């Protein structure tokens, strides 16, 4: 689906954001893109969508170079930016103007999604709240049947019931032909949806591994005391939340936030496990 090879990218020559980054992403997965502020999550997504251009390296998305902005690729990409713009028209006017660009657009599915998101179809886009607008563009984007779904902080601005609706919709939107990439720093909203974690740090991919692979190699649990076998631990109410190598084939639940902090703090310890 996506092949990134030796990508070099930066907004200025002196401050590179990605140095020789390489990565492969395939369909049938929901990738969770994690990283500190400024690590380049949004920039990576924009590179994939062809909104910015790499300085060197190759980028292949479904056989296209996204920088060329060819309609055949654009109609297969659903890009949900963090900040978005919607014209001040009614929903059906928006549909009339935009849906025909996507030849696989599914009107019935769109209506179902609006219903699940509790958005009345007669609404005017300008009168909707930020959260409703966000749900609207997500519904529109998914209804285009695009094969590559890119979402930058999709749960920002969604209230608690909407987040649950969002998770349900994403669970049903994930098909074998689709590749879904979601950047987020609110991992707790999405950690059960993500099946592969991509972490960006220090101009490169710090970790790319499936949840299955991570929990096979690492175990996440509560401990009373910290000893040498523990890679990283954070104090909690009843002792410590700890990450350690999984010696006894324990089936623990991946704590994405803990993993994130652990890798930022103790990168060297994790390197040999995931290479």
């Amino acid at each position, binding site marked *: 689906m996506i092949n990134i090879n030796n990508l070099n990218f930066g907004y200025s020559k002196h401050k590179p954001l990605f140095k020789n980054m390489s990565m492969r992403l395939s369909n049938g997965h929901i990738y969770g893109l994690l990283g500190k502020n400024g690590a380049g999550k949004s920039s990576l997504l924009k590179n994939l969508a062809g909104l910015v251009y790499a300085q060197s390296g190759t980028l292949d998305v479904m056989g296209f170079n996204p920088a060329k902005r060819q309609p055949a690729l654009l109609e297969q990409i659903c890009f949900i930016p963090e900040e978005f713009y919607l014209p001040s028209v009614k929903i059906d006017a928006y549909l009339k103007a935009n849906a025909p660009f996507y030849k696989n657009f599914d009107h019935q599915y769109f209506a179902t999604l609006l219903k699940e998101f509790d958005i009345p179809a007669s609404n005017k886009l300008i009168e909707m709240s930020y959260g409703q607008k966000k749900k609207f563009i997500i519904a529109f984007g998914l209804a285009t049947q695009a094969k590559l779904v890119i979402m930058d902080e999709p749960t920002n601005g969604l209230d608690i019931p909407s987040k649950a609706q969002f998770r*349900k919709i994403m669970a*049903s939107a*994930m098909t074998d032909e689709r590749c879904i990439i979601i950047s987020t720093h609110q991992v707790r909203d999405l950690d059960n949806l993500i099946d592969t974690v991509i972490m960006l740090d220090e101009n490169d991919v710090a970790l790319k591994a499936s949840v299955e692979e991570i929990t096979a190699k690492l175990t996440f*649990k509560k401990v009373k005391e910290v000893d040498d076998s523990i890679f990283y631990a954070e104090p909690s109410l009843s002792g410590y939340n700890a990450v350690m190598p999984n010696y006894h084939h324990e089936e*623990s*639940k991946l704590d994405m936030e803990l993993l994130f902090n652990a890798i930022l703090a103790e990168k060297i310890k994790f390197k040999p496990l995931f290479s």
Partner: protein
Amino acid sequence: MEFRDNKAIYLQIAEYVCEHILLGKWKADEKVPSVRELAVEMEVNPNTVMRTYELLQNKNIINNKRGIGFFVEEGAIDNVKNYRKQQFIIDELPVVFRNIYLLDISFDELENQYKTFVKENFNA
């Protein structure tokens, strides 16, 4: 569904499915929800549910009729009990034993407690 923090999600979903079979909500030879349906209900990645279903197939709790979907096995209830028993002996019993030993609880006392519990909760 609320997930607990101490166990892999796919195992927690397996427990959920087993619970339904034990309680008779899903009966033998009946269709269980599809991977997608259950993923939507649980708000999890369908790949996770797929992993659950693979596990349950290995334990002969459900079977896959190609092209139709997943069905509850003939002897599913026994297999669930077996599976849960193993899980209980491996995961939970050591903790219980540890407490029994530390708190010095006699088997007689334990038996009484157990009988009252069953009476109160299951009217047996």
